[in-house]
């Protein structure tokens, strides 16, 4: 019996694999027939292989509910998501355009502030934002760049067009899973991968290394990755990236600043660090300048940075541009700096701080998603259609109390993709909602490189629209195809 259940029925408007008539799309045909000819048992066995491999390799994150900490794997779904060369070209140029514009925006905010003077973006929204970093004012960053590593969350609209849902300009995580998912896929379903012309993803550490190196004037700069430590949920990724770049993974206690130069403590004495890829929040970087209780950064780091003896990626203060309220202005930001129309549209957004928007939001709460402006990971949001009476009342009160802290958007259906889950006691492939987070790295020369594909997250519970791992999300391998077609069985074997 086929694993694709006969009543596969995507209620969403766009399914990645099947067109409106229920036929597999051209670029999915090979994949469709592969799974059509796969038994439930075989699939379950392959899934077990993949899960054991992930567990044994310790590609896990920790859930802190008991003392020793339970470790879970980030659920990996076997059915890959395929993106055609044409679709990808569109996404890639859209992401590049966005990062160009947002970097120009950040440079402007910390220098002349012409976008505020021209009243394109409200001044108070920027200056009152907790993410606006005054310490960055007037400071020149290498190449004028602020976000060196960006992750843009995309979803599909009604016609299947890609739209931006969120920008991640501080420490976007997940790229290690993009690379690991591909490795696993190659291990458990090697033939399937060979039958498609899929663009590789394992060049990412090299891309990152080059971009980070470009931030320093030194000939052979010393890079390091700064992690909060093993208790951070993204620790695996920090270790992974340091390892693959061949650089040290440091913690705050390894660092010391002497006369505005950052060093790490080694068994041979102190060694200078030129570029730090930091994966801790701005607030924890330097207890002398930011949060004085921080145990994760090192005293004097900002002085070294301001003196030009150290490059930080991403630059402090980049978060002001990925605030969910600023998001509403991003099309205008792109037009303002690039004099271009945005390639990737955004989702209509209501800012509760505006009177008319708030009025609309409060009247249409059931049809909207309400999001706190500064939260991530899918925490603290309200999906109006799924909310209880009590939750609706609660959110009404919250919005009225601190309107500036909330935005609202029409509930986006998100496209669906066949995903191996259990539904009503039956194991099989059922439609589940997916998004896409492509990763881009920006060099000091202003070039923006986007890794082909990105992280496809999938909401595993039936009907769920929240793809975050903290809310029951898993991930899929994401295949971007070359534009020249595949020409024969086994040719790439």
């Amino acid at each position: 019996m086929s694993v694709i259940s006969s009543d596969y029925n995507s209620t969403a408007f766009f399914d990645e694999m099947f067109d409106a008539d229920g036929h597999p799309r051209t670029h999915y045909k090979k994949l469709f027939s592969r799974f059509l000819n796969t038994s439930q048992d075989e699939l379950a066995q392959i899934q077990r292989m993949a899960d054991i491999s992930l567990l044994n390799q310790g590609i896990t994150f920790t859930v802190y509910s008991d003392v020793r900490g339970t470790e879970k794997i980030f659920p990996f779904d076997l059915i890959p998501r395929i993106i055609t060369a044409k679709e990808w070209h569109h996404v890639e140029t859209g992401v590049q355009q966005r990062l160009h514009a947002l970097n120009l925006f950040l440079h402007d905010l910390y220098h002349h502030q012409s976008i505020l003077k021209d009243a394109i973006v409200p001044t108070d929204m920027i200056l009152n934002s907790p993410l606006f970093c005054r310490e960055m004012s007037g400071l020149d960053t290498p190449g004028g760049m602020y976000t060196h590593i960006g992750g843009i969350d995309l979803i599909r609209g009604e016609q299947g067009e890609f739209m931006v849902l969120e920008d991640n300009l501080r420490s976007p995580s997940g790229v290690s899973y993009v690379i690991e998912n591909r490795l696993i896929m190659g291990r458990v379903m090697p033939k399937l991968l060979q039958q498609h012309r899929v663009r590789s993803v394992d060049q990412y550490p090299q891309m990152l290394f080059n971009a980070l190196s470009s931030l320093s004037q030194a000939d052979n700069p010393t890079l390091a990755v700064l992690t909060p430590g093993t208790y951070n949920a993204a620790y695996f990724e920090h270790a992974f990236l340091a390892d693959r770049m061949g650089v040290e993974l440091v913690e705050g206690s390894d660092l010391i600043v002497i006369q505005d130069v950052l060093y790490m403590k080694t068994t041979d004495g102190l060694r200078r660090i030129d570029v730090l890829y930091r994966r801790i929040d701005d607030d924890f970087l330097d207890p002398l300048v930011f949060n004085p209780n921080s145990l994760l950064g090192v005293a004097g780091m900002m002085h070294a940075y301001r003196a030009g003896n150290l490059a930080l990626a991403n630059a402090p203060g980049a978060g002001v541009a990925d605030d969910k309220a600023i998001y509403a202005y991003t099309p205008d930001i792109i037009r303002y700096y690039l004099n271009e129309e945005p390639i990737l549209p955004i989702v209509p957004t209501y800012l509760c701080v505006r009177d008319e928007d708030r009025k609309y939001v409060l009247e249409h709460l059931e049809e909207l998603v309400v999001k706190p402006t500064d939260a991530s990971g899918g925490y603290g949001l309200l999906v109006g259609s799924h909310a209880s009476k009590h939750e609706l009342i609660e959110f009404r009160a919250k919005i009225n109390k601190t309107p500036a802290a909330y935005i609202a958007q029409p509930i986006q259906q998100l496209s669906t993709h066949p995903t191996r889950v259990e539904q009503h006691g039956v194991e099989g492939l059922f439609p589940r909602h997916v998004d896409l987070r492509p990763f881009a790295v920006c060099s000091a020369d202003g070039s923006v490189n986007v890794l082909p594909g990105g992280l496809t997250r999938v909401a595993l519970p039936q009907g769920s629209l929240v793809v975050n791992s903290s809310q029951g999300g898993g991930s899929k391998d994401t295949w971007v195809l070359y534009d020249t077609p595949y020409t024969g069985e086994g040719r790439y074997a």
Partner: protein
Amino acid sequence: MLSRVAYSMYQLGQHIERAENVTRILDVNYRMGFEVEYFSELDVWLPMLAITRSRDLFDSLYDEVNEENIYDFLLLSDKNPDSVLSRLHAAREAARSMRERISEEMWNHLNQAHLGLANIRLNQVTYAGSYTFNQRIQTICNTFHGLAAHTMVHGKAWKFLRLGIFLDRALMSSRILEIKYHIVLPDADEVGRPLDIHQWQALLRSVSGYEAYRRMYKAKIIPAQVINLILFNQDFPRSMRYCMEQVTRHLQALGKTHQGQHRVYTQAKLFLDELRGNERGEIILREGLQQHLQTTQQRCVDLQQQIMANYFDLLIVMDDQGHELSLGSQMQQQQQQRDMMP
């Protein structure tokens, strides 16, 4: 390399070695236990606590000294930082904090061992006798050594790992020898009689030294020769001398960047030179084994402290219970970062 990573490597070596040696100490006991009619239960188990220096902690956790409690305490308990599982857990955590430094094979091995042991229960251990469990642990530890030797670059990190292993092994081999002092014979007349010989033999087995002994000293068990093997033999990998040869070699290879590191090396070299002299088993037995072992162990501990101070340069503030003071708020801050799972 980073001082913190060097220290973690060193600790990783210690954890692995300690886990193995606790099972070895229990093994001696298991083997001596064949003659159990001579001893009361207390006679058998108390020495285990004496050798592992954990009597006080044990008493704070259990009401009675008996087989079950001892096994729980020494093998499984997460309240005993020196229990086999605590040590393997710590080894795995250390490996996790520097997985970019060790080989993938080493990490996979430790992680799988950890997963395999995570939910083990006391009755599963005691059901077949602790021997099977001990063998399993010893295999895990020695597989680790094999993987480290053959899959990891033999650079600085590896040398720190070896330092941790051999310093701890030196200390623990000496403690295993000490068992002979703690497990007293029923009366002085027994010296040299079958029971005495049986105990020496069990002791040899527990350091995997019975075969080595037979090759080198023939079948007749002579206590002075057992001491020679465990303390002074240059080829036996668990002997004090062998361990100190390794320690000295690695200290030399790590280089001596400053005066303090030079002093550590000199100290280790002096110790080694004494071990390299004549095999003095007989003299030691005459002058008092226990006293000699105490001096030897103190030298190992001194050396460990010197290495800590001169290579790792750590600033760790401890609270009254000996826990790292900032650890709690560290954990909290690490978890509250915005950087999280996608």
